[in-house]
């Protein structure tokens, strides 16, 4: 039961991104061409509401279901790490039209060739782990 709630939230998230066509390669391509508002509306409204939620949680010192204070890990400042890492990510995102969340959802939708992308993403993560000491952070 402790883990089951994450399964239910996952189902909800999977349905939302699927019904919203966020998992569609075409929606991502359309977004990068600035041809439609759809994806910007989704990310924009999620961030505005998310910011309100985050502010509210901090403001009220809300506790998690486990009873501890909900905490947010601040991200350590760096420019090259986020800019260069982000650029690599963006190149891949625009190519395969899926970020990690949608990759998994597409498996559930029966697009099994997406496994090639997932295997690639695991290899990419491995490559980062190996090169990490040599990369500027």
């Amino acid at each position, binding site marked *: 039961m402790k883990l089951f709630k994450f399964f239910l939230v996952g189902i909800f998230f999977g349905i939302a991104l699927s019904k919203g066509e966020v998992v569609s390669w075409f929606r991502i391509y359309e977004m990068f061409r600035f041809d439609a508002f759809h994806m910007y509306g989704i990310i924009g409204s999620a961030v505005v509401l998310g910011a309100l939620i985050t502010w509210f949680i901090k403001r009220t010192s809300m506790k998690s279901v486990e009873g501890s204070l909900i905490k947010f890990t601040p991200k350590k400042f760096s420019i090259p790490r986020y800019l260069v890492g982000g650029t690599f990510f963006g190149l891949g995102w625009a190519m395969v039209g899926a970020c990690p969340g949608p990759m998994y959802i597409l498996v559930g939708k029966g697009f099994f060739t997406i496994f090639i992308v997932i295997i690639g993403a695991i290899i990419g*993560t491995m490559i980062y782990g190996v090169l990490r000491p040599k990369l500027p952070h």
Partner: protein
Amino acid sequence: MTEFINSVIYEPWPWYLVGPAIAITLFLLLYFGREFGVSASLRATCAAIGGGKISSFFDFDWKSQKWNFVFVFGTVVGGTVSSLFMNSKGAVDIAESTKEALIGMGMTNPGSDYLPTQLFTYENLGIGTILFLLIGGVLVGFGARYAGGCTSGHAISGLSNLQLPSLIAVIGFFIGGLTMTYFLLPVIFSWVL
């Protein structure tokens, strides 16, 4: 009311339903004491398959991410449920200008399914498409870990928490995405499609 419920079940969702649904996901995970970040599951996978032997980056207790694997499994089931019972399949109503651009690069029937059939169906799988999907995946995995997060960790959680690093990462997402869309895909598609 029935009409609304029917449209939620059987019609594609407009942006103003999807955005709030993502925010609710963010809230629920925070309330359950976790931080929303799907690509962390990729790092945990590397740790679970013995990556700790080749890099100390994967030498951590991946079981602390068990909840993320359960969440991810839920998203897979959510994808199945939406396809089987909620009519989430077939044509995607993308902009005409998007279709024209894709047709101009040699893509047939853009938007007739969720994914381009020339890239993602078994019949069209060849050395070109396999390399395309694999390299794209490598870039996503490498970039997400280098940047310390993907769309959920940076664009949603990070921006919601007003983190400057996340804004820099999102700018990076767009530098890469625009470069791929405008300069590289036209060349790559001339080989692959």
